[in-house]
């Protein structure tokens, strides 16, 4: 683990305990310059997590609570007639100066707002009235989706879910973690203790470094075979897209970088495969398997170039 990222995780763990793996995954996605979809029940600390990350990495944090009447112009800004100057002036939206945007309950937004956000995520820029405004660097979106109380919501369609680098889930804390959380909140707010340990520029540099990690032919072959196998799997209707394969490579690189290496191994691909690909697979209607089963199947049947066998103890 990189010492800088170790520090970041330590800072975030001051407010969220027992979720080290999810925190690591989100930071990996941040390093891979991709966006995160959190699929979770309310109240498990998504917002706390996002705020903690933004404080620890000194990111400009914005939050949009999506409702059906949030409009695209709330996100990307709008031009308005200014009587004094006699022309149109641009009023920036929530995206314009955000490094870390928490899109809460994105499934409550109307589809046009969703698509406006997703477009900005993809292009890293917004265009209003023909003028293009680049977004901040780095730009990370953590969107959340509540499956509870889904009445009157529009779940993201497959094509848009595909644009998120990873889909994660925080889940409930265990006993010890929850006890610690309650204990921590007795005194001062732990959020105020989270300190900035790396700067924004350092993060951008690390992103660049991560993207320069080497994926050799064998790894690319492994990724290709994994995605092809997902398209041919008997229980799968729509398999992993080419974009999914690209993202898998990107995420594996970030994972390798976080591990202190500048080259990707088959284990890196395996480690990120589930998070990157589970939401890109659409099962057939009559499939007897779950997506998890399919993912396990793929990891098991497609030969790992590392020769690492699974399910055996390592020293």
């Amino acid at each position: 683990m990189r010492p800088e990222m170790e520090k970041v995780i330590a800072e975030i763990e001051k407010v969220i305990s027992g979720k080290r793996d999810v925190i690591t995954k989100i930071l990996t996605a941040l390093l891979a310059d991709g966006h995160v979809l959190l699929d979770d029940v309310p109240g498990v600390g998504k917002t706390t997590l996002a705020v903690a990350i933004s404080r620890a990495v000194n990111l400009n944090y914005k939050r949009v609570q999506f409702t059906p009447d949030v409009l695209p112009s709330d996100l990307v800004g709008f031009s308005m007639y200014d009587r004094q100057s006699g022309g149109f002036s641009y009023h920036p939206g929530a995206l314009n100066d955000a490094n870390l945007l928490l899109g809460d309950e994105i499934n409550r937004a109307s589809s046009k707002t969703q698509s406006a956000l997703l477009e900005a995520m993809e292009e890293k820029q917004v265009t209003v009235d023909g003028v293009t405004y680049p977004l901040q660097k780095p730009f990370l979106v953590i969107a959340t989706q509540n499956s509870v109380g889904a009445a009157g919501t529009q779940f993201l369609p497959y094509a848009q879910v595909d644009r998120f680098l990873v889909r994660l889930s925080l889940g409930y804390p265990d006993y010890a973690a929850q006890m610690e959380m309650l204990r921590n909140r007795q005194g001062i707010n732990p959020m105020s203790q989270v300190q900035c340990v790396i700067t924004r520029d350092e993060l951008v540099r690390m992103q660049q470094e991560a993207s320069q990690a080497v994926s050799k032919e064998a790894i690319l072959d492994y990724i290709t075979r994994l995605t092809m196998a997902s398209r041919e799997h008997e229980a799968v209707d729509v398999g992993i897209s080419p974009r999914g394969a690209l993202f898998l490579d990107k995420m594996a690189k970030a994972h390798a970088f976080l591990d202190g290496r500048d080259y990707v191994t088959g284990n890196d691909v395996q480690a990120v495969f589930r998070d990157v690909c589970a939401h890109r697979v659409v099962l057939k209607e009559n499939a007897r398997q779950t997506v998890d089963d399919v993912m396990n199947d793929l990891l098991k049947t497609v030969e790992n170039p590392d020769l690492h066998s699974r399910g055996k103890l390592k020293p």
Partner: protein
Amino acid sequence: MRKQYIGFAVWLFLCCLMYFFENNTGSRIVLACSCLLPFVPAVRRGLLEKDADSKQPQAIAQTIKAFANREEDDAGDVRAYLPGDPVSRIHWKLSAKRDELLARAQAKDLTAEEPETKAVFEDDAPAPEKVLKRAFLIGFVVILFSLLLLFVFPAANQGAQALLNRLFDASEAVNAYAYERFDVSADQPVAFAVVLLSVIGLSLLAMMMLSGSRLLALGLMAGSMLFQVYFGLAFPAWVNVPLFALFVLWMIKRPWNRQTILYAFAIIAAVSIAVFLLYPGVDAATEAASEAVRDRLSQAAQSITGAAPELNAEESESRHVHTQSLTEGNQEARADREFRLVTVEEEQVSMPHWVNYLRIILLLVLIVALVVLPFLPFLWLNQRKRKALEARKAFESENVSEAVVAIFQHVTAWLAATGHGEGNALYADWNADLSPGYAQRYAACEKLFEEAAYSTHEMKEQARQQALALLNETEQILRQRADWKQRLRLKYKEWLWI
């Protein structure tokens, strides 16, 4: 081409065949119905097309149309907005156009959409219990009424008795025919045939249930057709028509639709009546033609059973001898003996020449095999050994990365061959027997392997030494622990121990 189409084509062909051989009124009706049925949309939907419910999209389209129409119709049904009308009733679009407040007329709102949607969905989903109840009631009344007629009216009564008589006559005729046709002793056990037939029936049923198709109905139809044609036992029209109707009903798409069934019945009835009226008798020309064809067929059958099938020159010659000797002897016992002799001769003569060639070839193959076989294992072993040595050569390769990869793969091969690990993973249960640092050294080498395999780094000579040290250590431990069986395996199967 869909299965159903093929089935239907076969069915039509059979109908034509039956019409040709037994051209009575019944077969004519069946043929006519068969030709016409596919043109009845409801039947075609059931018979030829997939089971997908084609009705639903239509219904949805109709509802959409209805709603669209309502929007336009409303334009005519507005009135001026009066204070007290609910705001929701204001027709904003028209109001904006005419610059005054207009409200929708009150009655229209309630009646506009209800009957239309009802009409659309009524056909699709009738309340099933209600329909069933009504059908039962009607059936009950009809049965009662018919029974009353049968018992009260003398004409109906006597007609029924006559019908019974005819039925008995018909069955008598069938019995007599069957006895004449199948000339077997009465005490012949039938159990085997019964078992076979029931197996066929059960499998057909199972097939139908499995595939959910109408193959069984089609098969039964074809069976009845063949039966009628083969035995020359065409049922009279009044049997064939309902039989046919039953099969058609079976083939119609399920769930059955009242409309579909009525359609099918109507067309069958109409065609029957038409055929009865127009062609009451037998068509003489067709009858003569079919008669001629039957004669020719029976002649052909006789010539086939009478004479032997095609023979080659040698065989026909021997047969010639055979027939000659038969004509000379003229006594039955002698002929029998002669015949046996001739068949033995025939067998001897009929042994073709190529058998000899085959023998020679086999012999040659055997000789070659006997010469080569003893050396084959050595060739194989040598090959394996050369491969193993080549793999070892990579240890001294110029490219250190290559060397590290090869060495580490060798280590893992050792572990896999002796059952201490698989792939790159060490089994934890082996740890107890090892020197303390082995697991750490192994993990370090694994890191080196990954770096060598996946990075573009220049590897140092030190890495090769480290990996070689691990290989030596592993080999030493495993050689000590191996028993004689494992030694043999390692030496001559895996080629690790050189």
